[in-house]
């Protein structure tokens, strides 16, 4: 199970631009490396990241093998309503992980 860490402010004023951080534990194996015996190590990367807030994808990203292991993203969104902000990662086999943080907007 991948470990996920989020940084989301607990409260924000309506319209305020807030900083979000999302980290997931993942090797992001590039597929370009070789093992000790010279055998190719298969590619195993997260390809897609989405952040859903107030019924809309507010930020998303496509990763290639050039992303470092344990991808950490820092990005922004405008606070609109109180509720959940969902962070979702999907790897190239279709397996996905998600985590939700709650924000109060007042």
């Amino acid at each position, binding site marked *: 199970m991948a470990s996920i860490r989020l940084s989301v402010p607990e409260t924000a004023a309506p319209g305020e631009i807030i900083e979000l951080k999302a980290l997931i534990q993942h090797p992001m194996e*590039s597929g370009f490396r070789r093992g000790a*015996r010279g055998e190719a190590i298969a590619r195993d990367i997260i390809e897609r990241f989405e952040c859903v807030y*107030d019924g809309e994808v507010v*930020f998303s990203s496509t990763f290639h*093998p050039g992303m470092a292991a*344990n*991808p*950490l993203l820092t990005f922004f969104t*405008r606070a609109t309503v109180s509720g959940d902000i969902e962070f979702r990662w999907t790897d190239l086999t279709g397996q996905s992980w998600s985590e939700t943080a709650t924000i109060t907007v007042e």
Partner: protein
Amino acid sequence: MVPEDSPLVLNRRAMIGGVGGLALIGLSPLTASAAPEDLRAAIEERFGDRSIEEARVTLKAPPIAENGYSVPITVSVDSPMTEQDHIQSICILSERNPLPNIADFQMSPRTGRAEVSARIRLGGTQTLLAIAETNSGALYSGTAEIVVTLAACVVL
């Protein structure tokens, strides 16, 4: 004489195996890095022959990265991020990694600020390129020079 099954002999075998593995790595076409032509091809594939203006995009990265496995970068674009005028995507491209594409970020007015930070891999000293596209289809770019002491993809 050292018996055939002694640790010393095993160690020597392991050593020889390791050296052989290193030689294979050196010969492997998989470690070939992208040339600037690959970067140009990647830009052409994405944006065709549309003009890209070198403005508005700021790409921040350390001038010297001791380790190419994890290099923190921040890209920010000067944009009001309103419904009428916003950045809808930013891509990060490398001229020396095995693949020129590193990451794409999609944004909307709801993103609020056209800025994102990530950690990337770099296969050598190079000029990193970020290209941003506005909702009206205008393209802007910014670059950062990074000296990489220990490249990812070389030392395994």
